[in-house]
């Protein structure tokens, strides 16, 4: 099988090796009709091994979510076969609706309509805390 050149679309490069399925699921790429190619464990000078996702259509991607899950990802935007923009992600200052607060004493546990919002409090250790109860986000994202 040959993975063709993208005319209009997005290449997510420098994904931490082994995480491309997570990214695929979180961005709900499986629910879209566009062509998607995933490359696992590609050789990388910088990372040793990396994953890559190629999306053969220009779609909206939630960079906040992506930055939270894997801040090392590079987002390459392709138009007419040319690379028109390259974005290096970083940890977002705030994430909304990505992490759920699991503290049973938090106000979000009883008020369902409140957005689950977390703020970055320690970038070095990737610590996010609930803006309401200040509980630390657990490492898994839901």
């Amino acid at each position, binding site marked *: 099988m040959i993975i063709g050149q993208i005319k209009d679309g997005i290449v997510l490069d420098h994904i931490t090796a082994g995480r491309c399925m997570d990214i695929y699921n979180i961005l709900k790429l499986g629910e879209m009709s566009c062509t998607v190619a995933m490359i696992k464990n590609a050789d990388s000078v910088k990372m040793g091994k990396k994953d890559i996702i190629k999306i053969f259509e220009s779609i909206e991607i939630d960079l906040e979510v992506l930055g939270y899950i894997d801040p090392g990802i590079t987002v390459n935007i392709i138009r007419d076969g040319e690379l028109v923009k390259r974005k290096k992600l970083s940890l977002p200052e705030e994430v909304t609706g990505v992490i759920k607060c699991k503290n049973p*004493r*938090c*106000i979000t546990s009883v*008020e369902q309509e*409140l957005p689950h919002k977390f703020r970055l409090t320690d970038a070095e250790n990737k610590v996010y805390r609930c*803006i*309401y*109860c200040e*509980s630390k986000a657990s490492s898994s994202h839901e």
Partner: protein
Amino acid sequence: MKSIIDIMELSTAEIDELVSTALDIIDNPAKYSEKCRGKKLATLFFEPSTRTRLSFEAAMYELGGNVIGFSEASSSSASKGESVADTARVVSCYADIIAMRHPKEGAPYVASLNATVPVINAGDGGHNHPTQTLADLLTIHKEKGGFENLTVGLCGDLKFGRTVHSLIAAMSRYSGVKFVLISPDELKIPEYIKTDILDPKGIEYVESASLEAVMPELDILYMTRVQGERFFNEADYIRLRDTYILSTEKLAVAKKDLCIMHPLPRVNEISVGVDADPRACYFKQVLYGKYMRMALILKLLEEAGK
């Protein structure tokens, strides 16, 4: 400073300003007796807390203002399923300032995001209780003349005691402060207090299982109640409740100018015999709490009016 949810939202300069206003209120109460004429404080207490509610209400009355509100969730619209956000919006139409206590952590913050008047967090579960810390700070200032170069002993439930965590955070901003953390193993201070507050600032602290051993070095002794509601196991609660009981005998080796504090209510952790000791400051602490709430209400209303 539109609202006050967490003590750490106040800079040391703002705390100094509140302390200075509170001291002036103590010296010149008549000067303040009409300051809030025509203003209304809404006390929204979604769980009972007689002490804090009465302190807020007394504070507002002494400023010449009025008070509306409820003292438990069952007598509010929350019992009909109204959200905290909607309650805050509605009450903003009736009152000039809100004091809210809620069993859920973050509820007063949600209120502050939706209210059009200042919101004071009067306690949200085990999370924050900034006006208790303000009461503690005024007590320390009144009794010790300032906040610097003090050895502060905190004794009892250091694990769940939110007043202890807030006081450590607030006091850690002053130079020369040393903490002595006295608790049984099961109720030791959470690791994050050390890694997030004490260690980064290089603040000196020692942990001790014995109150007697450290008593002679303390300038402040902050006693806390071991709260039964935090335990799943009754036997553990009974055993730990009686771990540290402050008695006149234990105080024999303490400094002559020790300041004994307690956020109250106490169960049995301070013997009644200690009440007569001039070093017992916990009832004065209650009074200082009212003065600090007066200072805070004044400050927030003044800023809201700008």
